[in-house]
């Protein structure tokens, strides 16, 4: 019998992280686009700010990997 609990847990850890990143990046992205339209010199800063929520999905990936490896 296959134990579905581990892959489902890993999927939730990764999926929710990705969802959170998506929501955060959409908001920061549109605000960033508005800021760059008014002040093009802020482009570099905006790229960094849009990238920051990536940490969420990276953490989700790490947790998912740990679940898969450690609970095997």
């Amino acid at each position: 019998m296959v134990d579905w609990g581990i892959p489902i847990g890993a999927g939730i850890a990764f999926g929710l992280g990705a969802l959170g990143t998506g929501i955060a990046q959409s908001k920061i992205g549109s605000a960033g686009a508005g800021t760059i339209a008014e002040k093009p010199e802020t482009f570099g800063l905006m790229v960094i700010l849009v990238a920051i929520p990536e940490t969420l999905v990276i953490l989700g990936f790490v947790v998912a990997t740990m679940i898969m490896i450690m609970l095997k």
Partner: protein
Amino acid sequence: MIRVEYDYVNARVKGMKSRLLDRTVFETLILKPDIDAIITELSTTAYKEELEKASVQYAGISCIEVATRRDFTRAFRNIFKLMRGDESERYIRIVLGRWDIQNIKTILRGKNIHVTATEIHECLIPAGELDETTLIELVKQPDVKAVIDLLATWGIDYAKPLTRNFREFSEKRDLAILEYAIDRYYFESALDAVSGDAEEDQIVREILMTEIDVTNIKNVLRIIRDRIDPEEAPHYLIEGGITLDVTKLQTMIKTGTLEGAIKQLDNTPYNFLAKVPDEVFKSKKISVFEKDLDRYLIRQGISRFLGDPLSIAIPIGYIWAKFNEVTNIRIIARCKTADVPEKELRGELVYV
């Protein structure tokens, strides 16, 4: 209808706000010796483009007046464009409707006292729905009746209160009748449009109600100064103020003196009016009170910036901040032209 993404719009508005002149620039402008020096200083700011365009046709104070007016109009049109087709467009329409009313009143006043079309045009700020072309056509009309007729022909809503009250105006020849009618119409229809429970409605309603209070207090002071019969007073008062209802305003009028009326405002946010010097009360110079009330209204408008950053509060705060900036630049320019001493000039500034 598309739902607005306030993140984008408000980021742009905040970007526009970052280009507003700060206190140090105003200090520099105040210390400049003449108009040309002020133009040179302003040319280093966001007004550069409009000043360059205006300087082709105009010089001196006219150049500043034209440039600031165009910049002001352009800023509001930009906000309007960002929100076009969106639900929030109606809020901006309501807020900018203030300038439509102001422009129509300016044209009516000009036509009533037979001022030239050029002079009327100089006083207009085409920031609302009525654009410059529309206003120019209105200015070209020969008299008050023709202006109202043209508004009615174009199906502009503001023609309704004017048409309804025109007969009374032609009998008494008192323009205040038309002015109060159009003010009342604007506030009533605006409040009606934002009567919902949505956060946006509340934000716009609050600033409109504050404006009604300020307009009512100004009217009460004029009624007392001009000794208008208290029985006629309700005709000049607008319902829907945030702090002062019509009963309270009538109590103020019944005191019959400016001191008595201002005393009635003791426990309200308008108690700052009691701090004006005694000479003002004696000379019945209500322009001092009006200026204080305008300052209060502008502060309230600008304070919207402290509201929800993802709401209509930010564009509203910007509109007031821009209005304040343009008003102050014009005050400085006019005072420099008239050689007003620095101390008096600072007193004239609305809010720096």
